[in-house]
């Protein structure tokens, strides 16, 4: 009896002891844990700031240094003699528009149709689809300068001169895998019920694909095309060995042209401050072109995802 009593008396005591130890342990430990948690949070947020600093610095510097160069003459005149600071970058703007336009004429349809194959026909031959997808991904990863060498050997050496065609060919190769990838992804998003409904109405396959699948994901496909265009508009390396660069306006598809990124490179490599100022001006134009494309794209994509939500 007395022993039992003793035990009963002791038990709560022991329990309290445990409790206090555990409480102390938790208190001590959790404060350490929260401190670590907070430190990590601070560290990670500083990473974001580290990433944003260069972006803001690039934008600020390009605007600050580039605005001074902009003028009517700068936009429409060919470059003056080296180091004089005269003239403008008219041929480069024109060249970029022509080369990128031509490249899109080849790259966009081929890319979209490849995406259609991967999304709609891949079930008929899985092996081919697998290899196509693999090669498509590999094409995305090939450095653009390597593709430039290909353009040099395949087009420039064959035709005998640096030309717009070679530049457009090379840029289209860079464009195809991007467009194909995005097209495939967006076409796959089209619900199967829509396809089945169309088949149920007796439409042949090509009409289902054209009117239902492609037209239904028009905005997604154009997103991919714009993405690819903004990517190739900034490409420089492959243009060195295909369109070469010149200070003259367009003079036929079989002769060299200029392009904005190429002009920036040439200007930055010159030792004259006036050339550098023009380089910043050209950079401002290029960054305005590319960023406005990509911001418009974001707005567009966001709107689209919202409409998708409201319909489902």
């Amino acid at each position: 009896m007395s022993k039992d009593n003793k035990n009963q008396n002791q038990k709560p005591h022991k329990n309290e002891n445990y409790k206090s130890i555990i409480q102390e342990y938790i208190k001590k430990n959790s404060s350490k844990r929260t401190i670590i948690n907070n430190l990590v949070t601070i560290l990670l947020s500083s990473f974001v700031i580290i990433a944003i600093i260069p972006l803001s610095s690039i934008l600020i510097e390009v605007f600050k240094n580039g605005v001074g160069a902009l003028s009517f003459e700068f936009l429409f005149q060919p470059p003056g003699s080296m180091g004089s600071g005269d003239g403008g970058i008219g041929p480069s703007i024109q060249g970029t528009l022509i080369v990128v336009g031509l490249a899109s004429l080849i790259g966009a349809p081929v890319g979209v149709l490849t995406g259609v194959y991967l999304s709609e026909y891949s079930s008929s031959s899985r092996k081919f689809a697998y290899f196509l997808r693999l090669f498509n991904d590999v094409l995305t990863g090939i450095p653009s300068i390597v593709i430039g060498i290909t353009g040099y050997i395949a087009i420039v050496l064959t035709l005998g001169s640096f030309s717009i065609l070679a530049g457009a060919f090379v840029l289209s190769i860079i464009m195809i895998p991007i467009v194909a990838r995005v097209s495939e992804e967006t076409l796959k998003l089209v619900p199967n019920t829509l396809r089945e409904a169309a088949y149920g109405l007796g439409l042949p396959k090509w009409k289902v694909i054209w009117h239902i699948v492609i037209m239904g994901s028009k905005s997604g496909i154009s997103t991919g095309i714009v993405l690819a265009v903004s990517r190739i508009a900034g490409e420089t390396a492959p243009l060195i060995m295909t369109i070469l660069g010149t200070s003259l306006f367009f003079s036929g598809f079989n002769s060299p042209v200029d392009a904005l990124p190429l002009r920036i490179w040439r200007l930055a490599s010159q030792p004259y401050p006036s050339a550098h100022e023009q380089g910043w001006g050209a950079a401002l134009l290029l960054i305005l072109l590319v960023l406005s494309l990509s911001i418009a794209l974001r707005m567009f994509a966001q709107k689209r995802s919202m409409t998708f939500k409201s319909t489902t």
Partner: protein
Amino acid sequence: MSLKDSNDTHFDLVKKLDLQSRKSIFGDKFFKALVIGASLYTLLMAAIIFSTLFEGSMPIFFKEGINFVIGTDWNPVEGRESFGALPYIIGTLVSSAIAMAIAVPISIGIAIFITEMIPKKLGTILSFVVELLAAVPSIIYGLWALFVFRFWIRDFIEEPLHNTFGDYISIFAKAPFGLDVFTAGIVLAIMIIPIISAVSREVIKAIPHSQKEAAYALGATRWEMVKTAILPSSRTGLMGASFLGLGRAIGETMLVTLIIGNAIGLAAIPTSLFSQSQTLSSIIANEFNEASNDLHLSALIGLGLVLFVITIFINILAIFIISKVSKSYSNLRE
């Protein structure tokens, strides 16, 4: 069409339908041919790239043999030609390694921060801003690095490092100039951070919620949840993302050409962080238009082939890792 009408022209209707279906069979075949043609064109482009590089670099491999890959001398002058690519391979690897060492932790940190640690709306805005960096053409990074950033690096990082450690540690030994392998590595890192963090974000988002909730239910703090639930199961995916970034860093041309200092031959092997160097892609860009003879041109194409092989290897590795990961996730969800 009323029933009476259709009775009258029953035969016509059948004929019409038959014609229509034949037309659509033709349409089907035509469309399928078009689509397969486009796919074959895509494959053809990949084949053309490989065959032109291979063909173009044959002369240099015939002349130099294995020396082309392990030689260190680079001399395009007629009569004394000698082409060794090793310095540029090393320059490429060193600059990319510096870029990866900086970019991988930062971009994975950004991905975790944006997906797990802040409200969703703020996260969308932040990721938008970070990914704008991905849209900036590399030539503009180069311009900015050449005229602005290299002076920051020289004055705030390189000179203090050189002054304090320069006498004892050899990688800080050379007098900093701003145009060197270290600056190139840092700017490459800035360029690939948005790429790695975008893919990492997708990887982290794909982890099933149940895992995170389980960690929280066991009383984990946010960081402990990240450490125990996110990092282990997304490790391979994050590796794939990093490899994609590495592929970009190795192939990048214009930015490197502007800021790496463009050393040639033996001098291009970086002995310290602050020495001038040269990468495979930058020497191609620098010398391609000034190639003095066919052998020189072939040597540059050979460099392109080496670059091609390295990036293909890295990219295929990345593709396999990522596809394996997405498969294992779909298993988890089931």
